[in-house]
């Protein structure tokens, strides 16, 4: 099929042929995409349980405190690793490899590499999570997994990177779309990032004074050069696809990509402002953080101008609603991040729950929401079965949208109050804690909303995989616009 498309004269290629070709590509990605998506949903639920526990423990410190493996200091990193590597990365890889096949315009080859990666990935996650709970955690933020687990993750990343290079090498000739720049970059950056950081911090640890720098070079780049490019690649693909119109500006896309690559990679030291490091090192990161305005505003304009005049589509398309929500939160989280790096503001927010709110705005309101949108788009095409119920999708959206909105707001307020109190040496330390307590309670409430949303999504996801109900011919959309054709564009 792919041969006929390439060899055929462009004028003889009909939309039907293109559609059939896309269906063929989608089918070729089925097993790896479903494997990564199913593990993502599983780890989302696991990570959510740890999140709730960690949050409740801040409201009721004696909760389950008799067991070491349930102590706050282990449940919290178990949450972070389960959602970051288990949920977010698995969802990002699943989406990324489907996008890669679509954008290379060729059926997925060497799926064994990906299936192997998925197996290593899940064994690594399981060993790592159990390792943290049993006391083998390293207490290095974002790199808590003990060596026997991080090694497995690295093997999985390596296999995926090799696969990505092979796919890109054998792509059909023609334009390389912006999403693909981000995907290729993410798949190449991350193994380098992950191996360097693990080597210098966990396998052959360097002296403590330098560890902080490497730790936050890694921590921030895991967000900036792994999750962010995966999320942006997805948004750059889905928004034009669903709307059936091309991305607003090719030149803004180029500017956005290269400025992100250059500035984001230097951001890490803003987590250590005021700490025991040379001033120039921290200043470089502060400058790079402020320069992030360039890629962020560029991307925001590009996305906004693409959607402009078509906001009504958010009413009927689940994919678009989640994705545009995520894209808007990307702008918000990044602008907030740039401000947080400015030292005069950083002295308020540093060491407070404000940062936790910011992290959730980035990894949840931006990245996770876009991944939900991607799954709503991709899974029916890959499995050949539509989502069982628009009502479930609607519940999912509102529960998580309100849940994450509330979480970010309460942590932001609580964090600012905590930060201002910490700055004033006349306020006792114990009193700074009192400022946060009511907001930490509300954070738990928002966590319950998110949990409910995740359960609804998991039910919906399982029903689709089991192909429950009758075969639908039209996509599951909100409202009465069932007849819309959601994929008119050949990007």
């Amino acid at each position, binding site marked *: 099929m792919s041969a006929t498309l390439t060899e055929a004269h462009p004028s003889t290629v009909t939309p039907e042929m293109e559609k059939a070709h896309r269906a063929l590509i989608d089918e070729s990605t089925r097993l790896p995409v479903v494997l990564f998506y199913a593990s993502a949903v599983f780890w989302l639920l696991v990570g959510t349980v740890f999140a709730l526990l960690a949050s409740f423990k801040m409201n009721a*410190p*004696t909760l389950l*405190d*008799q*067991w*070491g493996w349930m*102590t*706050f*200091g282990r449940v*919290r990193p178990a949450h972070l690793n389960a959602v970051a590597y288990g949920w977010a990365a698995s969802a990002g890889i699943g989406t990324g490899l489907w996008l890669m096949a679509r954008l290379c315009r060729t059926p997925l080859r060497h799926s064994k590499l990906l299936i192997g990666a998925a197996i290593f990935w899940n064994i690594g996650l399981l060993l790592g999570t159990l390792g943290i709970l049993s*006391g083998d*955690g*390293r*207490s290095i*933020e974002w790199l808590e997994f003990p060596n026997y687990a991080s090694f497995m993750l690295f093997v999985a990343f390596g296999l995926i990177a090799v696969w990505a290079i092979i796919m*890109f090498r054998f792509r059909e000739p*023609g334009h*390389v779309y912006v999403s693909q*720049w981000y995907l*290729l*970059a993410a798949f*190449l950056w991350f193994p380098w990032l992950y191996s*360097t950081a693990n080597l*210098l911090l966990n396998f052959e*640890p*360097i*002296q*403590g*004074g*330098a560890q*902080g*720098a*490497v*730790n936050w*070079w890694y921590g921030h*780049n895991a967000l900036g*050069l792994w999750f962010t490019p995966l999320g942006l690649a997805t948004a750059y693909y889905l928004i034009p696809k669903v709307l059936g119109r091309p991305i607003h500006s090719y030149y803004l896309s180029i500017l956005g990509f290269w400025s992100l*690559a250059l500035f984001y*990679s*230097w951001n*890490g030291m803003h987590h*250590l402002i*005021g*700490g*025991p490091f*040379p001033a120039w*090192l921290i200043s470089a*990161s502060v400058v790079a953080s402020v320069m992030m305005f360039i890629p962020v505003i560029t991307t925001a304009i590009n996305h906004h101008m693409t959607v402009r005049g078509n906001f009504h589509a958010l009413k009927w398309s689940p994919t678009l609603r989640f994705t545009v929500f995520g894209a808007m939160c990307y702008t918000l989280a990044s602008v907030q991040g740039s401000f947080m790096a400015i*030292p005069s503001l950083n*002295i308020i927010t540093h*060491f*407070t*729950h404000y*940062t936790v709110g910011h992290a959730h705005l980035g990894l949840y309101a931006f990245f996770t929401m876009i991944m939900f949108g991607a799954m709503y788009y991709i899974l029916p095409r890959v499995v050949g079965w539509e989502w069982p119920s628009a009502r479930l999708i609607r519940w999912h959206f509102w529960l998580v949208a309100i849940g994450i909105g509330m979480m970010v707001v309460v942590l932001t307020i609580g964090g600012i109050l905590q930060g201002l109190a*910490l700055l*004033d*040496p006349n306020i006792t*330390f114990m009193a700074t*804690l009192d400022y*946060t307590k009511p907001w930490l309670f509300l954070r738990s409430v928002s966590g319950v909303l998110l949990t409910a949303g995740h359960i609804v999504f998991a039910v919906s996801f399982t029903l689709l995989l089991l192909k429950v109900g009758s075969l639908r011919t039209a996509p599951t959309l909100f409202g009465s616009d069932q007849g819309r054709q959601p994929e008119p564009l050949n990007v």
Partner: protein
Amino acid sequence: MNRMPVLVVGIFLTFLSSWLGLVAYPYFALARYTPVTDEETGDILPPPLSGLAERGQEVYASAGCIYCHSQQVRQVGYGSDLERGWGARPTVARDYMRENPVFLGTMRTGPDLTNIGARQPSEMWHHQHLYQPGTVSPGSIMPSYKYLYEVRKIEGQRSADAIDVLPPDTPPDGYEVVPTYEAEALVAYLLSLNRNYPLPEAPEPPQ
């Protein structure tokens, strides 16, 4: 952008720049410290950890203390660390040369622990605090670390290392609470946390 070499080289170079700045530079400039000897006292600074305290450092990592406690005293102009009495001077890279992993931290749900050994030198206080934080630190939301302690029947005489447990959660009559090796190690590590010594690059400010 349709050319793979341009794309791949660009992806490589942008990342390489940060790798040089934030990894290679710290590796060569901040990971090569040696201890210094104080000319007046002859002390080796920063002082080496005892074997027990070194084990305690591992317990600190394993229990995840860093998720609420930092270990860094920032410079003047960056918060109230010095005014709060968390240290006599800001910490510098050499202070952390023996730390692995380094516990700089990013959260202060609990107070900074850079110099907790100097601020709270009582071994019993630390045991009571770890066993039931609220008893010695009212209003605290720190979890208890009872899993590091053993409640056991008193055989003959009360053990020398048994802790004086404060109400409400006192052991039943005839029982005592004894720290495990991990608890002893953790407390030894906490008591070792005292970075108020002078270094050439960070002299102690006159009191």
